């Protein structure tokens, strides 16, 4: 999907190229990926357990 491509981290191949030209960029790419993995671990921990009921019960009437 196009929109998914946009958000994807650089592929390993691109990373290598970046690494040759600008090591700092690659490091930050790797760091971002590691951060996202940690973040997803954390999300798995804190995400509401019964997602379906939670989403269904979220009703907010009477707003501007």
């Amino acid at each position, binding site marked *: 999907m*196009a*929109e*998914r491509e*946009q*958000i*994807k*981290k650089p592929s390993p191949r691109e990373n290598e190229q970046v690494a040759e030209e600008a090591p700092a960029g690659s490091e930050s790419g790797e760091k971002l990926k590691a*951060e*996202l993995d940690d*973040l*997803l671990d*954390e*999300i798995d921990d*804190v*995400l*509401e357990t019964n*997602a*379906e009921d*939670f*989403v269904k*019960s*979220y*009703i*907010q*009437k*009477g*707003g*501007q």
Partner: protein
Amino acid sequence: MAIPKVVGVETELGIMVRGTNEWNPVSASSLLINAYVGSETGTLDDRTSPVAWDFIDETPGADARDYMAPEFAMPPEVETHLVNAVLTNGARYYVDHAHPEISTPECRDALSAVLYDRAAELIAVDSMERAAEVLPEGQEIVLYKDNSDRKGNAYGCHENFLLDRAVPFGQIVTAATAHFVTRQIFTGAGKVGSELPGMGADKIPYQLTQRAEHFEEEVGLETTLKRPIVNTRDEPHADSQLYRRLHVIVGDANMSQVATFMKVGTSSIIFAMLEDGAFDRMHALGEPVVAMHQVSHDLSLAKPLRMDDHTTATALEIQADILEQAESWAARFGLESVGGDTVGRMILDRWRTILEGLERDPASVADQVDWLAKKRLLDGFRERHDCDWGDPRLRALDLQYHDLRPGKSLASRAGLETLVDDADAHVAKHEPPSDTRAYFRGKCLQKFSANVVAANWDSIVFDVGDDPLRRVPMLEPTRGTLEHVGTLLDESPTVVELLEKLGA
């Protein structure tokens, strides 16, 4: 010449009570706010005085288009019977319809607005904690800083800007519409799915904004149904000969401080440019409401919008041209109106960085733009758990991004850049800005709370014992600052002396 762009942000929060099915949002909101204000000294609330917020100047039915609202239109109602408190930082904290709402004090620039918006989040966190102390065991009030329940019900995050009344309203409509529709590319808070009829997850899996789909009109007075892109509520809360207050209802509530900064900052510049007559080119959209939805639905940021002159342009192109004109305006007129060189330059530079980032690689601004920060989490989650867009866990993640509980908030874990220190925001829960009339309001509440019987945006009513109540008007939003009244307040040990010195 452009006048100071005094600004405030009002945020209606989503509310849920966990641990019971027997609750209603009005009582829960009241309990929440009472739990907070009851523990704050100096705060003016319904329980310590018969009148807290003073409704005398509230006329939300007044229409900026200079004619009466048509009969079928629904002017917003002012609810005077619900909890309504004024805080010592100059903010208003109240129950609006069925939501808790916090209005920041008047701020002099976009960065100050970010500080007080963050302070409002921290007030919400304190409120949840204090409510937990009075709720039965196992129950909890949870607040969400979002704008939609994803079931067709929306609630607002409104910005308010001080404008020179001399600017013709028609010009405001054209410039504001183009900006409000296209700024969504960096102000959107992101939403899984669509609330439009017949639009399933297959058609619109994810979109830029929470609010866009809830707008049906171009210009109008309503805020709760048939919402208009440009709201015409004409209630200046200031000298109505000189000023209008543009009540902006199109925005999403942002978790990203950069997004709040850009939402407020770029709009301040647009309005200052109008006052300076600095637009060489206006971007009149052909179908603003269609464009509003289209921008929100277009994750590629590439689809052209139809302009009034039958040409087309993308939101990015329109934003880039507005920025170019804004740079010329800044060079010619200076940045004093939007808070001075430092903040003004920060807005313009960040505007360029974000537009260039969105053009080149949107993921590069995922630490600044909410819809991209959220999308990064959603995409990561989808990949890890191999789920499609209809999965309820993605909808839960979408909601929980906006959860204000520190232990549950996903936005606070999403790597968003911050612009203000939390230490300063904690101070701002209690201390007003020093550079608007909010200073006078907040300081009077801190120092003379026993004598203040009512306050609103443009006046304070004092009780000085046997004499009649004394109303001190504050019709000029840029007066009543530390510079103006700091010494006066310091040298007035009692409210009687203060009023004498003021000549009130």
